[in-house]
């Protein structure tokens, strides 16, 4: 039915998949820095995923006019904008808290170390 977007669909889908996989791998690391990188990759993946949830269209405006039959869904774009702002702010917060914890204890492990759980 639609010939054009076929390559784009493959590209977008594999980009989401690869970023999610890499993000998950980094998330399971033990130290703060890779984990934060993993979270960032996951948020990139979810932003593209949200964007794709309104279906992929080429060359269609995100506004409704009277004589318009093809348009791209504007709502996911607004959702992605919100999600980008929030994830950016959250990442900044976790970097600052992680830095504080590292400077205080000279140790950047994410998990509890045996000596401080007792």
């Amino acid at each position: 039915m639609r010939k054009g977007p076929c390559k784009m669909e493959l590209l977008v889908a594999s980009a989401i998949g690869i970023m999610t996989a890499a993000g998950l791998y980094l998330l399971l690391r033990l130290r703060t820095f890779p984990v934060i990188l993993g979270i960032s990759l996951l948020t990139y993946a979810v932003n593209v995923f949200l964007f794709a949830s309104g279906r992929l269209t080429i060359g269609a405006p995100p506004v409704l006019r009277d004589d318009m039959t093809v348009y791209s869904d504007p709502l996911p774009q607004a959702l992605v904008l919100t999600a980008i702002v929030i994830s950016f702010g959250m990442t900044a917060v976790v970097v600052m808290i992680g830095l504080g914890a590292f400077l205080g204890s000279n140790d950047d492990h994410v998990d509890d170390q045996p000596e401080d759980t007792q």
Partner: protein
Amino acid sequence: MTHWLIAPVVLPAMLAPFIVLAARYHIGIQRAFSVAGVVALIVISAALAWNASDGTVEIYQLGDWAAPFGIILVGDSLSTLMVLLTAVLALCVLLYAIGSEWDDRGTHFHALFQFQLMGIMGAFLTGDLFNLFVFFEVLLIASYGLMIHAGGTARLRAGVQYVLFNLIGSTLFLFALGSIYAETGTLNMADLAARVALIDPAETVGIRVASVLLLLVFAIKAAVVPLHFWLPSSYAEAPAPVAALFAIMTKVGGYAIIRVYTLIFPPDVEVTSGLHDLWLLPAALASLAIGMIGVLAAKRLDRLVAFAVIGSMAMVMVSIALFTPTGIAAALYYIVHSTLAAAALFLIADLVRTGRGNVELTAQAPMAGAALTAALFFIGAIAMAGLPPLSGFIGKLLVLDAAFDTDMMVWVWIIVLCSSLISILGFARAGSVLFWKAHSVTHSEDDLVMPRPTTLSYVAVGALIGLLTLHTVFAGQVHGYTTRIAATLFEPTAYSNAVLNTPGKLSKPKKEEEH
């Protein structure tokens, strides 16, 4: 349409920047405005709850755009009950923070506290799933600040874990929202309910994935095993008043599960069959067992209370997972009890910390103010463990009764009763080590003399205990009210009608989206 419904969100949202900008260096002014704001919140939310108590569903259309295009706030009996509970809890916690001077040990306590309230109130009132995500983020980012209030390396390390775990939860939430939007083309809860019911049973892959992802997100918030690992360290390391306020945060997860899985994915919808009885109930029973065993195994009082929170939230989840009107009614009764009891115990743990400098469960010389603290701990432990005469006992009885005629009755009864016994042992051990064995230890010369907790601290804890007593005395009326709420949840036509059929000025209702 009156504007009062948005007041619980707007009032803290205005107060917080005012406190930051105008009263940054004056702790006295901050305290006055913070307390005044919370008292006003109690009055407003009591009026909203009174208004909704006869079954009216009040809605507020932001910008006068009708659903499903505009964002709406919905005040039905369930959400106004939770809003009122939050406001009352906030006042007790705030009084304790002022009385114990926790608010003066770091900066911006009151501003963050107000932002936190804004997020919680918004999460309870919103009628839109994406808006729920936004309010979750508001309450989370305020909670990150509160969690590391007053600093300290141990607290920062626990804070990193807390923030990372919640960031993963937020990402999952976005994935769930994306798949829901891709499947249905809407995020308004009432509109979703109508559209999910229309989905062809043969093509449910996408919506099934979405509903499981959404359940995972709310289960992280509600600390259901195996997604509970963030809770013990972060609640134990958080400042005591903050941990007490966080007692409502696990309930936000419980509330979201009740709302979404009665309205959008009710138990009789084929799309999500098996989710509640096959997955949620066993997980809730496992968290009940693990929480209560944690109570017995804890070596510090604050970790003991944190595990008690997991256990009592698990009681709520067991009751919710039955997904019957009696189960939801019992869960709502238990939510009120569990919030008040958990907050009281976190504050009592801080009274112990003030009186003797640490919360290790080892025999040490008697603490300052031991008699009164011991009495409060005794009452709080009775309430949390579910012994008669307090509301924990009545709540457990209601849950057991709701499970009586279900298939899982044997498992629910065995695990609830055994875990109650274990938690009684755990609390009894903690109390006897803290308060009785202390008399066999004499003060040594180099012990620091610790101050007695202030009167206002005791008043705040006493108020929570008093509320628990009221919750027990008026159990009949409260349970009658929660039964009526549960009945409206299983007959959501009033909710859907109010949301979808109220015209806005700027758009026509019922205009179909094209896809």
